């Protein structure tokens, strides 16, 4: 699927929704092992189940990136499936831990 910053994707096997924060060109994004679809399209067909090897879940407000960080997705709705792109699992990119400022 052609992605650019702002593209919204929906899982077909769980509640997960993401927004592309950083993206360029063609990416094959999956959630729970199944291809994600355009989140603005109306839902169709019965919902499947996340594949057993892709069910670590997504967390609201977290960023997920590919190896070279050319793709960055922001999770806006959490779900049971885990994200992958172009055949490789995306990893959670933690915010830099910052100390208290008081």
């Amino acid at each position, binding site marked *: 699927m052609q992605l650019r910053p702002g593209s*919204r994707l929906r899982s077909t096997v769980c509640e997960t929704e993401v*927004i592309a*924060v950083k993206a360029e060109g063609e990416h094959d994004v999956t959630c729970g092992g199944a291809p994600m679809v355009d989140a603005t399209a109306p839902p169709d067909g019965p919902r499947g189940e996340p594949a057993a090897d892709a069910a670590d879940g997504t967390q*609201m*407000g*977290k960023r997920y990136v590919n190896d070279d960080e050319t793709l960055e997705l*922001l*999770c*806006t*709705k959490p779900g049971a499936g885990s994200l992958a792109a172009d055949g490789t699992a995306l990893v959670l990119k933690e*915010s830099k831990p*910052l*100390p*208290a*400022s*008081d």
Partner: protein
Amino acid sequence: MTGGGPPIRSLAETGEVLHRPHALEDVALSEVPVLATDLTSAADLALDHREVLGSRLRSVRAVTVGVLAGPVAPALAELADAHDIVVGRAGPGSSLVETSDPEGAVELVAGAVAAHPQASVAAAQLLRFRAYEQVPLGLVLESLTYSMLQSGPEFARGLRERGPMEVPTDRTPPVAVTSEGTTLALTLDRPQRANAFTAAMRDLLVEALRTAAADPTIEGVIIRGAGRSFCSGGDLAEFGSAPDPATGHAVRLARSPAWWLHELARDVRVHLHGACVGAGIELPAFAGTVLAAPDTTVRLPEVGMGLVPGAGGTVSIPRRIGPHRAAYLAVTGVTIDAQQALAWGLVDRIEREPAAPTDP
């Protein structure tokens, strides 16, 4: 005049004091840097004193208090505005702290200044810039002031008086995030500490607000507090744990809930209840809509700790109630109730929540 307060000078006397060659130094280095002036009459105020008075009032290193027994004469309105705090029986509607006992109010201010002169004066000076008119710049100036005071003796004394405290570890996320249709609901969720604000809370709040800003399907954000109070302010246990003041400044601006709340303000509604202290009112005041339960109380305690409000309060609060009332709250640390907060516009409505905030 009542007992222990500082003298309340006539305008002519203040004009004379501030015109002396050593005025700035004498006032600045006095034990209780407070300058109180009766603004009801400009009689005997020398013309050449009058010309520089506004500028001297804004230069002087003291908390300046204008006292009004009656309505301010139009000619003196500008001089009233040049003061940090204005107290009295009647006067400019948007800046006056109404009181039937102006001398008592001056004494209250002086007592607070005597206890923490550096922090009190810094709070007043910070508000003189009117930097809150541009939120991002106001946040920078507040943070600079806060960091400056973090290295001072009054904060060091505050930490000594607090004594050693363990930084608490939460077993559950301190902010609960749930979707209610197109609304993102955030609940401050450390009821065991009256939702005292921590770095972990800051991080979760910023994460949620950032997500709301990025997601076009989220139309509104609602913020509530679990338990008896909305938020009791910065967790005392974390005070003194910033690596150093310069790093504190960098962190404050890099991950700022205040900045994000201002960005989203139009779509943010906050439900206050119980104690709303420090960050517990400074952050909500950025929201487009602030609802307060009848039991809401508001207080800015930071000057009493040798600091100034540091969660954005010197920006959000004067934007709602003006710089003079904001200075009064910040310097004195007095508690105001929901009715007073409503009368000043610090909250928009008094309303009981239809259902008590509970877990999702």
